[in-house]
């Protein structure tokens, strides 16, 4: 599997990272190096093996369905680059 510049551009967009067109060839080549390394996994016989979901065999604990935190809009917003009137502010999302 070889990654071309078009695929690299698509992946960058999916990851929401702006990549300049002149950077794409180098990026595609790095992807190919890393994916080439990963391709080794195709040698392994994984027939009948379940993909690991949890490294320690434990059931997730349950808790009471009650509110345990909240009521601190000021703390939630304190690190926002732009917060107005108790909300996060972002550029226009819909036309």
């Amino acid at each position, binding site marked *: 599997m070889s*990654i071309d510049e078009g695929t*690299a551009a698509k*992946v*960058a*967009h*999916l*990851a*929401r*990272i*702006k*990549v300049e067109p002149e950077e794409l060839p180098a*990026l595609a080549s*790095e*992807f190919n*190096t*890393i*994916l080439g*390394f*990963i*391709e*080794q*996994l*195709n*040698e*392994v016989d*994984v027939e009948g*093996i*379940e*993909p*690991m*979901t*949890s*490294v*320690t065999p*434990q059931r*997730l*604990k349950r*808790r009471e369905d009650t509110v345990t935190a909240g009521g*601190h809009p000021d*703390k*939630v917003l*304190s*690190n*926002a*680059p*732009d917060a107005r009137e108790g909300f*996060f502010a*972002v*550029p*226009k*999302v819909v036309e």
Partner: protein
Amino acid sequence: MTDLNTLTLAEARDRLRTGDVTSVELTEACLKAADGAQALNAFVHPTPDLAIEQAKAADARIKAGDAPDMCGLPIGIKDLFCTKGVASQAASRILEGFLPEYESTVSRQLLESGAVMLGKLNMDEFAMGSSNETSCYGNAVNPWRRGNDDTALTPGGSSGGSASAVSADLCLAATGTDTGGSIRQPAAFTGIVGIKPTYGRCSRWGIVAFASSLDQAGPMTKTVRDAAIMLRTMAGHDPMDSTSADLPVPDFEAMLTGDIKGKVIGIPKEYRMDGMPDEIEKLWADGTAMLRDAGAEIRDISLPHTKYALPTYYVIAPAEASSNLARYDGVRYGHRAKLSQGDGIVEMYEKTRAEGFGHEVKRRVMVGTYVLSAGFYDAYYNRARKVRALIKRDFDKVFAAGVDAILTPATPSAAFGLGEMQDADPVQMYLNDVFTVTVNLAGLPGIAVPTGLDAQGLPLGLQLIGRPWAEGDLLNSAYALEQAAGFVAKPAKWW
């Protein structure tokens, strides 16, 4: 009289209790040492005023007879831990200016026990790196040098600042985190001890997430005893982390008898890599002999899927990172890019992330995005999770056959020069974690112990891997190894 900053946690604790020293004196000695060590670039957000305040409170507690083990001991905290009101940036530009409103569980437990925080420590950006060269603060520097050669060496990564600070006696100990070797590799490169506990032993809550199924916090210390002391305070069940284990935390220090008679130590043949330097080979053989002489039974074992651990890791870790790092969107915290006329929210995301993330982080996020994307999920991500299950099964089998711990080298080489790997492809850098990454994939505890010097005078370490939840037993084996190796070398001060 010994400089107070050179004490171990155990020595300082005992002297605090006898009233021989105060926490303020210990803290001032460390602050002075850190202040004089700018060349190491280990502390990136020093908190001297806070430290003195905490030290005074600790002294009052000790006087009142309420002194848990860590009370009054000055330590450094890796920048990956969120610390309330103190910059916590994960060494990334994208978290510039971020001041957490909360305290991570691990640092909270340390502070509540009376530990003194000297400041935040340098690291690779988002813990992605093996040399501390991806940090937005610049490189942390290893206090060790090759003889009289003044080439600046890496302290390893990602917990490079922690390793450098402990090794240079800028603090008595430090926290680290380990996703693929980030505690054990830097510990080995700087001649200190570092343990990654069993996955779930320490809460991940409030630690900036890299790869959630692999990340674990652990102590980086001058001795095995110190690791036992500090781990006990860091560990324990936390309802805020659903993967944290609800198991009692034993008194690890009380388990350090040094008696390993009859213990079975496995030597995995797959860790004997092609082209492994003779010095590493000899270090490993010497360590094996030390454990045998201490009464352990040495057994050759096989972990057949070892060679697939790194490629597995480089699917799973980037996949989880791409998901975890999606939260850095310029909305809730940290950096937001300046926008041009007409830019919408997608441009805001793309520009913010392009400006905020460094090269290695972008690369891993994009690789992760690719392996999770439609059409490739099964071929890469699911396959890697299956191989991960096989890697864990290898360990399960040897433990079921009676092996108590496994001895391996910690790293394939001694510390290398900063910049020396610049022209290598990313895979070359990833090979640093070849001996450590299996342990994260299998969720096991692993500890690096310094046991020798190479021909250039640089420290080398061995790794012991233990059964799940058997950190006490593992620390005891490490203690026996430490006693036998008698590693006492310190870097000559040049900074």
